[in-house]
């Protein structure tokens, strides 16, 4: 191909890459969007919750056509012991107009639809093509090397959006190899159930959905959590933990998942369902401190490839979409001024800093370290809380004041007061 036939090359047709390609194509830039799957979506997995605002920011009214599964109206947090669960939940009636706050998706249909929007806007989608390396000249990224014969393609901008554990980020010299505590491994299953059964079991109106995140005993001492998300005619049921903790405990991911599915409060939700697919995927856990450089001469990094995941709030695809849009806007500006140097592309970093993306990642930048060092916090405190509530709810002739004393005694027997204070301080510091 001729040199610089395109303004930009985007690597990876996930939420970040597609958002970038779509934003650029709409502004009249010529963009090629590489995808290693035979079609977009085939390689992509997530738990299943996406957010409407960031989608509408990219596709406008087009969000109405998005293949969403259910609008999330019921969100539950479970603190679980082996045989009990303490629930914190919030349910709401969704607003009648505008994009839903949160909704569940299956990534194969969703990513296929999203990439089609970029194509319709004029981006050239090239699926079935693995980008193996970047091309560097005089300290600038000037294109990519694909696995195809004569597979070099040059452009003034390369947007790296190749997902978690990005090889291209390292090849472009923007980041170091990741450590096993900076990535989680998550396995999940798609379990088919009739929509009416799902709505009855989760007490939902038709078309609305529930999410449950489960912390505590099911991860068996590892840092991570389990989840149950409702789709139209299936549940996404999964559990994950840091790769470093899988290495130490030697628990197999499928045993962990089977144990989670067999939990006495999870099993009834799945009963009678048929496993349609078993999936595994990596989720970036390193946070802001493990992020690569986000821009350089002729290159930008978005989404999972840039560690843009806010694990505490199970957000990731929305950060990727917002970052992809900002990368696209930066490219539009660079094209206008005719300069693709790091000085111009720094606008991308500025946009991210001014947005929730980097502000949230900065807020929680201490959390990954705490989670890696202290997975016990996720075992001890859910158990103590569960026991305390169980004690107060047990009507056995013991006075409530005596019950309070028992709870306190049990607490201090397990954890001296100074350690509780230290744990509380560490937790506060990591999340303030």
């Amino acid at each position: 191909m001729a040199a610089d036939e395109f303004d930009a090359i985007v690597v990876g047709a996930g939420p970040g890459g597609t958002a970038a390609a779509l934003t650029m194509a709409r502004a009249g830039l010529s963009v090629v969007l590489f995808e290693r799957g035979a079609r977009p979506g085939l390689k992509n997995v997530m738990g299943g919750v996406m957010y409407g605002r960031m989608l509408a920011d990219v596709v406008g009214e087009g969000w109405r056509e998005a293949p969403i599964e259910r609008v999330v109206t019921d969100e539950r947090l479970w603190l679980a012991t082996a045989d009990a669960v303490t629930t914190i939940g919030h349910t709401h009636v969704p607003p009648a107009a505008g994009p839903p706050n949160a909704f569940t998706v299956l990534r194969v249909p969703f990513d296929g639809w999203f990439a089609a929007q970029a194509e319709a806007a004029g981006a050239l989608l090239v699926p079935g093509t693995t980008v193996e390396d970047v091309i560097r000249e005089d300290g600038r990224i000037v294109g990519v090397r694909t696995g195809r014969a004569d597979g070099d393609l040059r452009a003034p901008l390369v947007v790296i959006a190749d997902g978690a554990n990005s090889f291209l980020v390292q090849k472009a010299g923007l980041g170091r190899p990741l450590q096993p505590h900076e990535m989680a491994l998550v396995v999940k299953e798609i379990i088919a159930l009739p929509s009416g059964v799902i709505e009855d079991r989760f007490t939902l109106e038709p078309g609305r959905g529930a999410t449950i995140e489960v912390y505590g005993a099911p991860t068996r001492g590892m840092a991570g959590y389990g989840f149950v998300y409702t789709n139209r005619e299936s549940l996404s049921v999964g559990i994950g933990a840091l790769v470093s903790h899988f290495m130490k405990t030697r628990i197999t991911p499928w045993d962990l998942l089977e144990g989670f599915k067999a939990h006495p409060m999870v099993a009834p939700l799945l009963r009678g369902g048929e496993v349609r697919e078993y999936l595994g995927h990596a989720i970036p856990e390193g946070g802001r401190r493990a992020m690569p450089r986000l821009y350089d001469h002729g290159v930008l990094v978005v989404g999972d490839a840039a560690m843009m995941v806010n694990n505490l709030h199970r957000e990731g695809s929305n950060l990727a979409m917002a970052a992809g849009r900002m990368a696209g806007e930066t490219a539009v500006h660079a094209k206008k001024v005719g300069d693709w140097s790091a000085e111009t592309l720094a606008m991308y970093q500025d946009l991210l800093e001014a947005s929730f993306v980097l502000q949230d990642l900065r807020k929680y930048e201490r959390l990954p370290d705490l989670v890696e060092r202290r997975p016990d916090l996720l075992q001890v405190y859910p158990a103590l809380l569960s026991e305390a509530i169980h004690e107060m709810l047990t009507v056995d002739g013991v006075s409530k004041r005596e019950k309070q004393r028992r709870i306190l005694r049990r607490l201090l027997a397990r954890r001296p007061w100074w350690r509780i204070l230290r744990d509380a301080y560490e937790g506060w510091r990591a999340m303030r």
Partner: protein
Amino acid sequence: MTQRIEEKLYTLRWRHDRQSHIAIVDDGVCLTRCGTEWQRPCTTFCPASVYTWDGAKIAVSYENCVECTSCVLGCPYRNIDWKLPRGGFGIEWQHG
């Protein structure tokens, strides 16, 4: 109703490449150092059971790979040379 990994993998579809995208760099590391220091964690954390110990070396069932990249980080000696499958090959999720 507990499912074994073989049953789980049975739900999946791949477009198989004839060439492997995974290689063990040095079998000796798995046999000696990893055997004593780590007991070969790839044989337990890989969600698709790609890696099994045959008594002398790690056997690699690359056809099972779901491309999660855990082994790239999880091999304590970075002894697994894992590359992205060639374009269009490898796992093809049905739902995602």
